């Protein structure tokens, strides 16, 4: 950087630009760049948003119109959303999903926050190995461990339920531990040392000092975990697809299409139904969310 600086001053002094023409040309070029950038960005916006628009519009169409070639509903049928509830066991799927996502998130936070603290702020032999194991677990495709885990849960008679997906979160979730550790690394050690000098044990330090400071991180982690469970398809498909009483929303709307044939107005209504809660939560907690995504990319 310092090597680049001197020639800059040099060249500036040597070639004094013809005043007015230069400034005008610069302004014109900046304007062109501005227009070019924003037209590409707006085109991309339209491409990103149009699928939402199409499925929302279709979800209000009559079933015959949803097969026709019109973008806009002739008559509005909000009853499609009720029909989704009547034709499927949607309330039950919702309850199951909330149970899976809610319990899973609470368990995950309870078991992952202490582990993240030990990995970020305590020194002990084997810490690096444990962190490496967490990374491995985070990267491990779930198919690799599916057979032994499935036979283990079958042995305990829990296949056909969502418990094989909820109970493991009592024992720490790798991604959550990783994310929480990244957050806690940003908390200066001085705060912790002050608490320790004041006679706090490590657990008290965690709850009195680190927890309040890591609250945005904990919120982001909880949200990720909740969304992960809400969006999860492979897990419920593997363990609960045989038992429709334990289906989640994802399982329900995935088979909706094959069960109710061509009713695209209902399929799109079910799709909107699965998307809306996630988007609403996102808009309320956008800042913590984006911060969380950003931290996943920062290698530690």
């Amino acid at each position, binding site marked *: 950087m310092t090597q680049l600086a001197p020639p800059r001053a040099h060249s500036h002094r040597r070639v004094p630009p013809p005043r007015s023409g230069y400034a005008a040309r610069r302004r014109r070029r900046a304007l062109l760049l501005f227009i070019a950038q924003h037209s590409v960005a707006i085109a991309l916006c339209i491409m990103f948003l149009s699928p939402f628009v199409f*499925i929302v519009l279709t979800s209000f169409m009559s079933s015959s119109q949803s097969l026709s070639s019109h973008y806009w509903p002739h008559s509005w049928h909000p009853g499609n959303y009720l029909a989704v509830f009547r034709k499927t066991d949607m309330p039950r799927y919702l309850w199951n999903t909330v149970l899976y996502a809610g319990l899973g998130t609470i368990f995950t936070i309870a078991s992952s926050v202490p582990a993240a603290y030990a990995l970020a702020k305590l020194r002990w032999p084997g810490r690096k190995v*444990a962190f490496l194991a967490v990374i491995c677990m985070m990267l491990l495709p779930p198919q690799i*461990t599916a057979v032994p885990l499935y036979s283990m849960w079958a042995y305990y008679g829990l296949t056909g339920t969502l418990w094989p997906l909820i109970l493991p979160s009592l*024992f720490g979730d790798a991604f959550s531990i990783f994310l929480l550790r990244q957050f806690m690394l940003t908390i200066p050690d001085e705060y912790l040392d002050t608490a320790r000098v004041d006679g706090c044990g490590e*657990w008290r330090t965690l709850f009195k000092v680190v927890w309040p400071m890591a609250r945005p991180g904990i919120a982001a982690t909880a949200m990720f975990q909740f969304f992960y469970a809400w969006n999860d398809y*492979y897990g419920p498909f593997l363990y609960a697809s045989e038992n429709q009483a334990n289906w989640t929303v994802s399982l329900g709307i995935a088979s909706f299409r094959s069960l109710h044939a061509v009713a695209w107005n209902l399929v799109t209504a079910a799709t909107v139904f699965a998307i809306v809660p996630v988007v609403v939560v996102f808009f309320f907690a956008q800042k913590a969310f984006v911060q969380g995504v950003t931290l996943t990319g920062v290698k530690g």
Partner: protein
Amino acid sequence: MTTTTTSHHAATRELAVQPRRRPAAFSRRTRHGFTVLSFMAPALIGILAFLVYPLLSALYFSFTRFNLLTPPTWVGLRNYGAMLHDANLLKAVENTLWLVAIMVPAQVLFGLGAGMLVASVRRGTSFYRTVFYLPALVPPVAGALAFVYILKPGAGPVNRMLSAVGIDGPLWFNDPTWAKPSLTLLALWGIGNTMVIFLAALLDVPANLHEAAALDGATGWQRFRLVTLPTLSPVIAFSAITGVIAALQYFTQAAVAASAANGEANTGGGSVASAFGDPEGSTFTYPLWLYLKGFKYNKLGYASAMAIVLFVVAFTVVAIVIRRSRSLSGEQS
């Protein structure tokens, strides 16, 4: 830090020689060990029960014939041998490699491009960031259903717009050659996470570095290659790793899109699993075959052998990418 604690420990041990105080039940180091254990115990159990045990167990099962009802019987390398003559496996490997070779680079490039665009726009950064991120929130099942709908052959919105400008749109999810590109479009739509990570890294590049290079006469491409790219290399490695890992376990979108598009063609019932790979096996990925083999046909030994191969491939890729990015950026990450 570690040196100071050990010298501290040495000091306390010397003090302990003097019989001044009641000898503590546990040394300070042991107490510290117990404290750490109290924090780590759940996670350590988790690592043992959900990483170490299933990995070793899968390795053992891969050498056996196992159907969940009777105890596994040892068959040596027979499962691995059978994999060499499995036509379905070949198809699945082919499709998964297509995703790794085409979908993942497309995702990284598109995420980088979108990130650069949002970073360079002077106004409206947060607006564009929100809009570009939004599709990443959509549950994979919902996204797959939405794309089957908008890419519907015939009266689907995309083909209608294409025909309005005189293009005869393809059959998308109902055409074996277009099914994987359609899935790629779906993946590009949900690029948000990659984009946000690139955006954060791009905003971290010091602005005066760019200005200095520009005044030095560097062209746009030179500035990108010499200033931007080196700072992005760890992020590119990160998104390549997560992209490849996601492609190797690609399951939900393939299963749901095939089943939904198949329902369109047949207007029939049938479970999601019966449509795996449609049309004509073009979306039949490795995890789909692993699922069918293990949990529909009860060949759990064979499925375990497939899992072990997947494990070896996944971690080889991770090791290669990490090594490459280290040699590129010259720093350890």
